[in-house]
């Protein structure tokens, strides 16, 4: 498969070369020029998404099928409306084969993450974090990165169906208008909307306008990972729902109550960055306590981890509170200090928190009941953290998006109170609680309009199925967790006939034909401070955020008595086996189950791919008579699912953790039938954990789990080095640094202009795996599927190794990103008979795919085993749209060639050519490798070792620096910095 766009088809160039414009403004005007160039009428019909017969799109699809060249031609067409490039990188003229960055945002559960999307000739090919966005700050997670693959998914829902008959966009709008009109007489009494939780200003405005037109209509919001309990907790504590906004930069002692804040939730990227920033000695180290059941990456990064059942977390929090009660103005909470089994440890934690008054923080996870959240608020108040490390603002999104409102809706539907239901929530039938039979209920409504991204579990129950546009295809806006607004701008014209939520809802206020861009533009024009709005608008688009839209913190008054009451009322810890539902690290709540990148991404702790498992501790497994891979029936309150168990070191006893989002029945060819659907056990009363799980082994046959790492012990080798900050001394790693005796005189690269190198700070790395996904997206790395992973042929250039240390019950977890080390004396090079892997003058270990004959000798001789081989043709089956996702700067490898991390040499060469054209030297930070750019924790730095001021040089000079397998004398260019832990002496 040719690297797309590496040489654009000529007609593609025709288009691109047609655009003048050195800077954003001119490019924007160039659209006018484009239009003035009398483009064929059907191409850009003003406003309308689609000409009547929908010729252009359908022919577009044929073209796609016909040939890749033509597909990229279509992709080269600019999106329907204006797009402005991001202003940050020195403006480059939009030339064929040149990357341009556009700022946009992606919402999950109503909270936005600001993104920078790299686009080649109108094809978005890579997602990065937007440094100017408060939630991402330049980092980006696997979900955002992988969302690009969803855009190009050839099996997305396409077109619009009314009762299984395809209808055009125009007639759809007509029908919608009619439908809307039909509900006007009774004020929309029989009209319902089921949406996801949203923070989008324009969508919220649209809802208001719909409410105005249909006073009796009702909006229901549903998110399977709702934050309701957090809001209820705030209501308990402050009398009204509040958004707690945490700030770890100031926090020295952190207590996470069943909160996986490094991976999940709207603050994850920012918190990861702030947390990691204070993990290096020299700075004032923070200390993290985590009380949780399942070993999460947050728990893995903790200095102390308390293994508790989810239902015991409250007890733990109470013990902490009790300790603080007397001297910290929580008198009313004093009597709550029940002697739980963790009381002693809790008291130590409490003292530690108290010691850093105002500079500590207690976080409660969204899975915990309101009482725990309330208690956390109380503790933070008592510790003087409120206003310091945490502040509060009124929420700007649906605060009730939990099962309750869904249950009401289902009831109304069942009672036949609803004529028309409009569903824009993501696949509610799959994610609905087990005790809400939404599918059946939907059947009751005469008309169900479903905005479907895929032909999923919900689609069969809907009478109207409308293909949803991907966020990268439409206009819109979104709010970050702190309220900051971003404009969502399309990167590409919709690949398939589709419509956005905005356009759909607009249909109910007779604005269906306006088009998302006009609606959005007018909405914000109405809210601009005046002056030159267009300039302002361009500024917003360019920067990716609307400055000054963050919601200011508000003062809150704590109702201690109320909290005390609530806590007293809370149920005691459960007996017996408890079940605990967690959002999955890859499928989340199932909305990413069809994403192959995420399916093949190893689960951070267990390294399982293409599966979910019932996680439990060794002790519990023994008790239940199961082992790794045992197939079991999980029974809870009359409901049962079949799954397979997996023993996780450090997992709490008496709990079985079930990741959600698997066992999809209609996800598509990738996700259907992968894993089991834990959601079948999940009820609206107990959405997160419940007592009384029965686990019954089923037969002897084992389930095959495809792991990317099978061996978890370091065998006492110096691979990941970790020290307690007290015990840490540079002398301790003398033996794994410095020159090694050698018979050959190593090449000296000091006199080269550039000497590329990388450094990975293991103290910062949280092991989330974002780097792996970023690398996969940047370097066109194929997905090989479960069967090949079982043969250990996964292709990830960058893997995150994970080792366990200490006792299996309560192990220390060590994560280590491992990719080609670019050894200066590389063992792989001299064994290749055809010179396919050689050293560059700047010391890069180059892998030349087109010279490789595939002897695989290099891999045998690589001590780090970071080389990957195309054993089969992993690229043959790509659909035209999937090919569009390829990075044109990187060769797509054929069958039978070796490949490996290149330090993103395509970025180096791009930067080199640009700098040489401008007659200057590449500056540090001008570009970086994909992994370093994505890393939310800033654990990876890449750059020029011959520039003494570069970050990477400093890192290589760091006293914590060491080389993996140093004694082999490979002189790796990638250095690691030892992991530093900050345990509490009183607990060790």
């Amino acid at each position, binding site marked *: 498969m040719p690297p797309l766009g590496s040489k654009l088809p000529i007609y593609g160039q025709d288009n691109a070369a047609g655009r003048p414009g050195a800077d954003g403004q001119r490019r924007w005007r160039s659209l006018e020029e484009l239009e003035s160039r009398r483009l064929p009428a059907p191409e850009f019909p003003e406003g309308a998404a689609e000409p009547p017969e929908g010729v252009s799109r359908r022919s577009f699809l044929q073209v796609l099928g016909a040939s890749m060249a033509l597909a990229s031609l279509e992709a080269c067409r600019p999106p329907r409306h204006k797009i402005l490039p991001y202003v940050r990188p020195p403006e480059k003229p939009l030339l064929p084969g040149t990357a341009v960055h556009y700022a946009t945002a992606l919402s999950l559960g109503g909270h936005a993450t600001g993104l920078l999307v790299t686009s080649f000739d109108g094809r978005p090919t890579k997602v990065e974090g937007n440094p100017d966005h408060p939630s991402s700050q330049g980092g980006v997670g696997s979900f955002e990165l992988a969302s690009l693959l969803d855009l190009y998914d050839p099996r997305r829902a396409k077109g619009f169906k009314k009762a299984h008959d395809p209808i055009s966009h125009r007639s759809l709008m007509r029908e919608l208008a009619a439908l809307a009109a039909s509900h006007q007489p009774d004020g929309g009494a029989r009209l319902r909307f089921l949406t996801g939780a949203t923070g989008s200003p324009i969508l919220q405005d649209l809802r208001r306008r719909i409410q105005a037109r249909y006073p009796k209509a009702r909006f229901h919001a549903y998110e399977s990972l709702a934050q309701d309990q957090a809001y209820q907790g705030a209501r308990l504590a402050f009398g009204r729902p509040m958004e707690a906004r945490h700030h770890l930069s100031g926090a020295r002692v952190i207590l996470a109550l069943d909160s996986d804040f490094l991976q999940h939730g709207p603050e994850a990227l920012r918190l990861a960055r702030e947390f990691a920033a204070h993990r290096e000695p020299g700075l004032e180290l923070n200390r993290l306590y985590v009380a949780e059941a399942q070993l999460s990456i947050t728990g893995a990064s903790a200095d102390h981890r308390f293994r508790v059942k989810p239902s015991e977390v409250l007890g733990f929090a109470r013990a902490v509170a009790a300790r603080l009660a007397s001297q910290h103005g929580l008198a009313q909470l004093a009597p709550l200090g029940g002697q739980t089994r963790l009381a002693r440890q809790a008291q130590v934690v409490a003292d530690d928190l108290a010691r850093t008054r105002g500079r500590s923080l207690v976080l409660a996870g969204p899975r915990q009941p309101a009482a725990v959240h309330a208690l956390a608020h109380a503790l933070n108040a008592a510790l003087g953290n409120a206003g310091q490390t945490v502040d509060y603002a009124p929420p700007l999104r649906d605060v009730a998006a939990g099962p309750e409102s869904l249950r009401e809706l289902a009831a109304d539907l069942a009672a036949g109170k609803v004529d028309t239901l409009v569903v824009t929530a993501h696949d509610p039938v799959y994610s609905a609680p087990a005790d809400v039979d939404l599918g059946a209920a939907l059947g009751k409504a005469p008309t169900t309009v479903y905005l479907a991204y895929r032909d999923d579990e919900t689609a069969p129950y809907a009478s109207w199925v409308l293909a949803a546009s991907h966020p990268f295809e439409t206009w819109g806006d979104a709010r970050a967790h702190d309220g900051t607004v971003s404009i969502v701008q399309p990167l590409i014209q919709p690949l398939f006939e589709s419509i956005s939520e905005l356009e759909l809802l607009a249909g109910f206020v007779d604005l269906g034909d306006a088009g998302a861009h006009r609606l959005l533009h007018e909405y914000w024009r109405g809210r601009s401070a005046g002056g030159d709005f267009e300039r302002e608008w361009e500024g917003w688009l360019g920067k990716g955020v609307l400055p000054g839209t963050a919601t200011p913190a508000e003062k809150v008054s704590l109702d201690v008595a109320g909290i005390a009451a609530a806590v007293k009322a809370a149920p005691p810890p459960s007996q017996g086996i408890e079940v605990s539902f967690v959002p999955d690290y890859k499928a989340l709540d199932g909305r990413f189950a069809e994403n192959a990148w995420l399916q093949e991404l190893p689960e951070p702790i267990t390294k399982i791919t293409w599966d979910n498992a019932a996680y439990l501790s060794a002790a519990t497994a023994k008790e239940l008579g199961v082992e790794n891979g045992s197939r079991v029936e999980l029974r809870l309150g009359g409901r049962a699912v079949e799954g397979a168990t997996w023993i996780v070191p450090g997992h709490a006893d008496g709990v079985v953790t079930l990741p959600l989002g698997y066992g999809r029945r209609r996800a598509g060819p990738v996700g259907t039938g992968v894993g089991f659907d834990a959601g079948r056990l999940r009820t609206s009363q107990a959405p997160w954990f419940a007592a009384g799980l029965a686990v019954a082994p089923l037969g002897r046959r084992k389930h095959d789990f495809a792991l990317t790492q099978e061996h978890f012990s370091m065998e006492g080798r110096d691979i990941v080095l970790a020290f307690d900050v007290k015990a840490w001394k540079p002398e301790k790693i003398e033996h794994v640094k410095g020159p090694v005796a050698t018979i050959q005189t190593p090449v000296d690269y000091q006199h080269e202009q550039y000497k590329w190198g990388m450094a990975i700070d293991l103290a910062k790395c949280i092991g989330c795996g974002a780097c792996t996904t970023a690398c996969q997206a940047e370097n066109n790395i194929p997905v090989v599927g479960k069967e090949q992973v079982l043969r250990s042929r996964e292709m990830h250039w960058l893997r995150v190794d994970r080792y366990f240390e200490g006792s299996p019950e309560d192990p220390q977890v060590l994560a280590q990103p491992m990719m080609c080390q670019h050894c200066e004396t590389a063992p792989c090079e001299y*064994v290749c008979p055809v010179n396919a892997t050689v050293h560059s003058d700047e010391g890069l270990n180059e892998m030349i795919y087109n010279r490789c004959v595939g002897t695989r000798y290099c891999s045998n001789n690589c001590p780090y085993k970071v080389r990957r081989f195309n054993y089969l043709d992993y690229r043959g089956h790509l659909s035209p749209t999937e090919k569009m996702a390829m990075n044109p700067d990187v060769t797509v490898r054929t069958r039978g060639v070796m490949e490996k991390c290149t330090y993103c040499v395509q970025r180096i060469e791009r930067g080199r050519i640009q700098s040489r054209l401008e007659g200057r030297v590449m500056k540090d930070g001008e570009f970086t490798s994909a992994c370093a750019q994505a890393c939310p924790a800033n654990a990876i730095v890449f750059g020029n070792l011959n520039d003494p001021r570069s970050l990477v040089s400093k890192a290589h000079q760091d006293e914590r620096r060491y080389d993996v397998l140093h004694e082999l004398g490979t002189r790796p260019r990638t250095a690691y910095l030892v992991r530093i832990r900050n345990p509490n002496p009183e607990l060790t």
Partner: protein
Amino acid sequence: MSGVIRRVAVEAKDLELLEGTPVLAGRPGDRQLTEDLFQPVWARTRRGWLALFGICAALTGVLFTAIGYTFAVGVGAWGNNIPVAWAFGIINFVWWIGIGHAGTLISAILLLFQQRWRTSINRFAEAMTLFAVMQAGLFPILHLGRPWFAWWLFPYPSTLGIWPQFKSALMWDVFAVSTYFTVSFLFWYVGLLPDLAALRDASKSRAARIAYGIFSLGWRGSAAHWRHWRIAYLLLAGLATPLVLSVHTIVSFDFAISQVPGWHTTIFPPYFVAGAIFSGFAMVLSLMIPARKAFHFEHVITQHHIDNMTKVLLATGLMVSYGYLCEHFMAWYSGNPYEYFVFFNTRLRGPYAPVYWLMLFCNVVVPHVFWWKKARSNMAVVWVAALLVNVGMWTERFNIIVTSLHRDFLPSSWANYKPTIVDWSIYVGTLGFFGFLFLLFLRFVPSVAASEVKELRRELEHEAHAREHAPAQGR
């Protein structure tokens, strides 16, 4: 060197005088020998031969089907993975190449050392060598990811303006193996000439005469022919002799120059060569014993030959055992944790430990039966032992390659290897193909060098005559 020669010569002399085991039983006349030795060529095709041939042909079919499949879907049809990037392919390659060594050794070296007991078995061994090397030759191409670019391994002036990597042992392999094949072939064929001529003359049908005539390159057996032939034969022997050492030495470099724990060992070259001869003789025995019986060659391939070969087996077996010992000692003595782990953890207790123990049994224990003359003279025992040694040498290569690779430096990258049906088909297929070629050889070419045997007979007569007339000498 001369010292060596003398020692070997003396030893051989004693062997000759071993009572009851002459190199040639009885005193058959030329005609007699011609008839006996060419009999398999003239005789009507026998049912047993047909049956075997059928089986081997079928397996050959399997082989080429598997090869076709591998080319079609890629080398991923095999079980190889990362870290075990080499497996059956290279195991079979090394195994077959090793087997190939016996032929050259017997023909060339023993010829130079003037070992009489070589004469009646050399042709046999050479053919075996040839066919074994042909099997081995398949694999370097087969195991490539992109076999259609295999020619990039040859240094030629290309329009790419770059050359192969001469530092790579695989590069050296290319030359070692191709040279080895060429020389073995020439050696075998030159040795064959007089007999082909004899066949030509003895052929009944004109077609056969013409066919054999062409292949005997116009041999007329004139004194000049014989003189040139002898010179050529000796020269080739001289050429081939260093190859016996060089080829497997270089093959062993494939491993020795890398730094994989379990490969990175200086003892590999000698230990590979010893192993090669070990397996080579084992293969000769396991083929010759049945053939000898089938063709009633007992008077030509006498107990004496078997006896000597088993002793060679014993000797090389001991060398191989010493190799193992050394490896383990060095692993412990060097204090290299990775080496130590491979030899004292992975191999002894790892998932492939059974293969390791099987190897120790076949290669270290089994040869010791040859201390006993009874065992040496019992064909059944010898045959089974030889077969076991063949198995043992295959498992040795499995241990070196797979077991070393599947657990090296970073535990995170450890993974097991599981051969696929294609792996097995190719392995068994080469056995079939080998048999296929060998059966053809037995059927259409004199498997014992008649001319040399006749020559030997005369020498023996002279010696006997001499001994009779000089009774004073000797012990």
